[in-house]
């Protein structure tokens, strides 16, 4: 018998446990057994609950539409492609467990997904051990290159190389860098410094703040004192919004300051469009691209998911990325090792570029970048940078 005063505690504890796990690990789609002669099956690991659920959901939706397009055209090897979606809630421990389950129980031929670097690293370790190819669609550089990991998102070099020179030319040579205090913004800042100095600029300030910062006044004051012409920001999550708003309120973020970085991503458009409209942002894919394949994807995405805001770039990378994978799988069938070998040399034409392929030295997709101008409705293409190479070797490949 539970004492009366403890009953509410028990109920709340149960609810808390349920909400904390976010039903993590629950399979969303039905799974079936995969074999050499069976249909191709892909395991999709994404955060569908938790603080980065929005990006995870966008990736899943882009992936679903990409698979649907291939299936509507007859599938792979005459069979419909199957996939299993699982929710890791952005927790690397869940990602590891789910990757193992998808490989051992669901017998998937490939893994796709993850949003954050730590969950990607967790899945990459499992995929490498099991010799199952794993594909990501988010921008950024993995800490280590792995034989079975491939990224469809742009690398930091591909992000900065086309955008730093025009920013310095238009606004001036004094560059300030600000970021959230974790691994990736430091990597971003290191490369940003290289590109700045290589283009005749000077880094006049470099600031980091712990995640969860609510008051940016001291950081903004230091940035203002440095009198920058350009601000490169890798402040992420909710902090990106608080920082950008306060930077505008304190008079740092004006039309005279060049501004590029994470806050300009479409994820933040609903909150920051008033501050970012009219600014230019380097992206691999933008929902304002006018080619027929992009238009078909944008129209399908908006119709199916009742989406009115700009479509996140990660959805486009997942949509065209999975088509790249399935085109390679059409040559190899269900053998994961053969698929991985094929991916390494495969070339594919899509709105991401003509003859897109992975560099052997770092497993980064060699594809186009575009200069997107932010509007209240979408990310319109202002100019095309064309192919932006990143073939810098990385340990592990």
């Amino acid at each position, binding site marked *: 018998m539970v004492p009366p005063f403890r009953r509410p505690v028990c109920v709340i504890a149960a609810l*808390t446990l349920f909400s904390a796990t976010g039903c993590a690990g629950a399979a969303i789609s039905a799974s079936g057994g995969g074999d050499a002669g069976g249909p191709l099956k892909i395991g999709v690991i994404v955060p569908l609950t*938790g603080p980065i659920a929005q990006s995870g959901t966008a990736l899943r939706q882009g992936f679903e539409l990409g698979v649907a397009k291939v299936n509507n055209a007859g599938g792979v090897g005459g069979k419909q492609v199957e996939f299993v979606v699982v929710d890791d809630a952005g927790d690397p421990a869940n990602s590891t467990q789910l990757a193992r389950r998808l490989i051992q129980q669901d017998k998937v031929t490939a893994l796709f997904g993850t949003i954050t670097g730590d969950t990607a690293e967790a899945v990459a370790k499992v995929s490498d051990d099991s010799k199952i190819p794993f594909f990501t669609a988010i921008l950024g550089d993995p800490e280590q290159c792995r034989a079975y990991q491939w990224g469809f998102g742009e690398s930091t070099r591909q992000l900065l190389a086309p955008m730093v020179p025009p920013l310095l030319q238009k606004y001036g040579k004094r560059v300030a860098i600000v970021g959230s205090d974790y691994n990736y913004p430091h990597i971003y800042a290191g490369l940003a410094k290289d590109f700045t100095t290589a283009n005749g600029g000077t880094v006049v300030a470099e600031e980091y703040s712990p995640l969860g910062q*609510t008051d940016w*006044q001291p*950081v903004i*004051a230091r940035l203002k004192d440095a009198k920058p012409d350009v601000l490169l920001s890798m402040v992420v999550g909710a902090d990106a*919004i608080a920082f950008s*708003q306060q930077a505008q309120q304190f*008079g740092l973020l004006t039309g005279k300051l060049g501004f590029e970085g994470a806050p300009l991503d479409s994820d933040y458009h609903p909150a920051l469009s008033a501050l970012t409209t009219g600014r230019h942002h380097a992206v691999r894919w933008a929902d304002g691209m006018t080619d027929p394949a992009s238009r078909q994807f944008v129209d399908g995405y908006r119709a199916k998911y009742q989406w009115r805001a700009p479509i996140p770039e990660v959805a486009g990378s997942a949509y065209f990325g999975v088509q790249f994978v399935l085109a390679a799988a059409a040559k190899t069938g269900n053998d994961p090792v053969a698929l991985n070998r094929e991916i390494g040399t495969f070339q594919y034409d899509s709105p991401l570029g003509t003859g897109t392929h992975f560099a052997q030295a770092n497993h980064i997709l060699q594809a186009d970048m575009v200069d997107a101008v932010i509007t209240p409705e979408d990310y319109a293409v202002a100019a095309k940078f064309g192919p932006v190479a990143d073939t810098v070797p990385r340990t592990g490949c």
Partner: protein
Amino acid sequence: MDVLLAILSQFGLYGLLTLGIAIVFAALRVVNLAHCDFAMIGAYAAATLTGFAFSWRVVLVLAATVPLLVLIERALLRRSLADGLGSMLVTWGVGMALRQIAEVAFGATPRSVAAPVTGTVALFGTQGPAYRLICALVAVVVVGLVLLAAYRTRWGLTLRAVADNPAMAGLLGTDPHRLRTTAFIVGGLLAVLAGALYSPTLAVSPSMGFSLLVPTFFALLFSRPGSLATAALAALGVSALAVLLRTWLSDVVADALFYVVVIGIAAVRSRPALRRFVSWSRRFVVRSA
């Protein structure tokens, strides 16, 4: 001067939150871990009720939150009063539930709120955002009014009596249930007001309350139970410490040092010798008064 304005602005936010959690702790003896999630409710109201003027959004959310606060206090906290730890766990669960509800209703993507007053003002030669100054002043005035009520009204006297000795206050005719409900409402509304008022300077997200809970909790830790004046002073101290460290040092170092200083103060305060010294020195204060 800009440092003083930054401290004032931080104090406005932390002062409202700390005073609210201190009122609840005084009356219920419960550390309300859902307290800053009430601020999230205020911020979401400011972000979503855009058809109304900003001031009306604040008024509407304050009015709409009262039934929720009554429900939480009566349905969840009243029955578990006998168990302090149980009550604290209940509030933790309430906070989790509120965050999940917000995520389902509004999504995980953070939102922003346009400041109702734009532009900058010059104060003693320092330029600062006008709205930041206005909301800091409003918050400080509200903190002052609450302290006035606590030390100059019958409700405040009853609250302090219950905080000091609930059994004795009950024997002298105080209705503890009514006082607890009132205190929970007042404390919760201060958090809602803080969230709504400061929403144009923050990112509005389901987990935003969690970032605010740590400094609020530290300020409560440094205050004397039942003494709202010490709670306000502690909030001022925490605000000043955070701003000064971040002004002199980089954010990363300042953040680490902030926790070191706070934990150090808490450790020193818990030393029996220091407690005896404070207790002994109070006799002279009372005699001289």
